[in-house]
């Protein structure tokens, strides 16, 4: 069940990504419609984060390409926003909440320019949207996990992008934060933005997303939630790894073999 759409905002074409020559994603080929709240779902080690990182051009791809708004990502960076995993940075960094959210404006500012009044307003507005305006001057080292996540979200919002890619925004946050975030994401979707979220909780997936990508080293399904979250497809996703696939991957790494003939 892999549904391709007309005029996609995101097009992933035959994407293979490897770590140390071992492919962790095999031939992913999918398209996403505009204005969708998309969940990327699969077991641990399925390559969910890898997919997002590859789309954001943070990882080298072994083969395939990605187009966003029918352009290479380098051309449309200003319209894309990324929320990395909370643990990917050291929160004991000497900065305030506001400093971090303001980083969301750096892309628009360009080199040498200092943030203008309008940028500061935008950052404050973003903080308001995630309910953290009272924490603007707080040191980031003093935040709880849920608050850190909101700060990252606010930074992405400050970018005013059209597509958002979020890596596990619900990991380690409390229920209140999770509810607040999903409300926010729904509003964004209703404004016509596309939001792609890596998510590990199958229970809430059906309620949260209107488009779901099932992943386990390869693409199992991509389509509207009600058509994708079926018993059969979930069993295919969670029913263990394809042993042949991972054995071949191991071979490629051991033999130092390229995943495509040069």
């Amino acid at each position, binding site marked *: 069940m892999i549904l391709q759409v007309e005029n996609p905002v995101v097009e992933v074409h035959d994407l293979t990504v490897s770590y140390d020559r071992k492919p962790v994603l095999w031939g992913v080929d999918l398209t996403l419609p505009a204005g969708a709240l998309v969940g990327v779902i699969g077991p641990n080690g399925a390559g969910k984060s890898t997919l997002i990182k590859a789309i954001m051009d943070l990882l080298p791809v072994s083969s395939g390409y990605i187009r966003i708004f029918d352009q290479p990502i*380098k051309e449309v960076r200003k319209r894309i926003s990324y929320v990395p995993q909370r643990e990917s940075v050291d929160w004991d960094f000497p*900065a*305030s909440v506001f400093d971090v959210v303001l*980083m969301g404006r750096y892309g628009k500012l360009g*080199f040498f320019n200092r943030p203008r009044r309008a940028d500061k307003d935008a950052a404050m507005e973003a903080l308001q949207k995630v309910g953290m305006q009272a924490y603007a001057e707080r040191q980031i080292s003093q935040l709880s996990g849920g608050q850190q996540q909101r700060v990252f979200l606010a930074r992405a919002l400050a970018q005013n992008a059209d597509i958002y890619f979020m890596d596990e925004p619900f990991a380690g946050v409390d229920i209140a934060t999770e509810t607040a975030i999903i409300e926010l994401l729904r509003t964004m979707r209703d404004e016509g933005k596309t939001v792609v979220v890596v998510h590990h909780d199958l229970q809430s997936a059906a309620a949260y997303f209107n488009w779901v990508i099932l992943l386990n080293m390869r693409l199992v399904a991509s389509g509207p939630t009600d058509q994708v979250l079926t018993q059969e497809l979930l069993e295919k996703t969670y029913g263990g790894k394809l042993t042949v696939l991972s054995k071949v991957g191991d071979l490629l790494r051991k033999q130092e073999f390229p995943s495509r003939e040069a």
Partner: protein
Amino acid sequence: MSDFTEFFSFTDANVRYVTIGSVLLASSSAVVGCFSLLRKRALVGDAVAHAVLPGVCLAFMLSGTKNPLILLLGAFITGWLSLVVIDVITSRSRIKEDTAIGLVLSVFFGIGILLLTSIQHSGNAAQSGLDKFLFGNAAALIGEDLIVFSVVALLLLVCTIVFYKELMLLCFDEAYAHTIGYPVRALELLLTTLTVFAVVVGIQAVGVVLMAAMLITPAAAARFWTENLRLMLVLAALMGAFSGMAGAFVSYTAPAMPTGPWIVLIISMIAITSFAFAPGKGWVSRMWKQRRNKSRVLEENLLKVMYQLGEPNQDYFTSRNITDIMERRQIPKRAISRGLNKLRREGYVQKDRQSWMLTRQGQTRGMRVVRLHRLWELYLTQFLELASDHVHEDAETIEHIITPELEQKLMQELEYPVLDPHNNRIP
């Protein structure tokens, strides 16, 4: 004293030069070091510092002069090369970065020493003074050298100001920087280049061996005082500048004293002081906090015991002896009288000859501790499914740290209970 006024009047041109040089070199490397520290690449500076030596020697061998620009160029090339090699080793092999740094550092330094020794035995008269690069020679910071190095140091400072926002983002969240279209590789290159330059000018003052201290120590010390990056940069620069000046002063008053090592010693002293006395993070303030906690626990335990002594007959304000308290709870006698005296000063107990009694406030506070203790015991049995004989120890600690807001919340969740798990009334 006259040394002091003489030095700080800066009438002696030599003093002026050496001081300006030391201050500029120390503060510029301190500022660059802040970013290295925050990028968690503190050791890289050390590798560069050692790798600079073969460059200096080669530049001298090829040119035959000690022109600072040429030596600087040679230093820059090998310093830079060492970083490239570290990068290549880490990305192309299974060797981790720390191992790669160790390898590169020793190989480059070994070659440097080899070249230096062979130059020294070549009989070339012009070579004298080249060994100063090992431990530095701030006193030689005069004339053309001073101008070259000062200009580079100033450029470093300007660069960090101009690229402040870019460097900050690079250090905090490299991946994000990439996704908003920052040329991350170029920025890395910039920071690397700044580090190499800081090292290259710094070794004039402190030498290759001690250079790492100039990069990292002020940054680490400044980090203890502030949570604001701008302030951290300014503090590190000031600490660097101060140690530079102090180092110059020491070697002025005692000419046998080398400037570079003194600069490093002084900045290290500043760092140690920071680790010890910085508010919040320093160990003195942490020890202070622990002491305060300990005395608070003692006081509250005493109030609790005195409250409990009054519980059977509801006679909370009867006088008690120290032995009454000791029967109830094993606290050393000296600690009891120390705690009681403190409580008296604070107005929670009164003393009447050899016996003590609670005041109204003392009774209230004692009651609160007892209440918190029993509430917590109840909470543990109800929400954590612990057996009622397993909860006392835990409650002994928790009773001292629960805030009024948490207390409210506890009451709510337990639905305003009356009895604790041991069937004692919750006051």
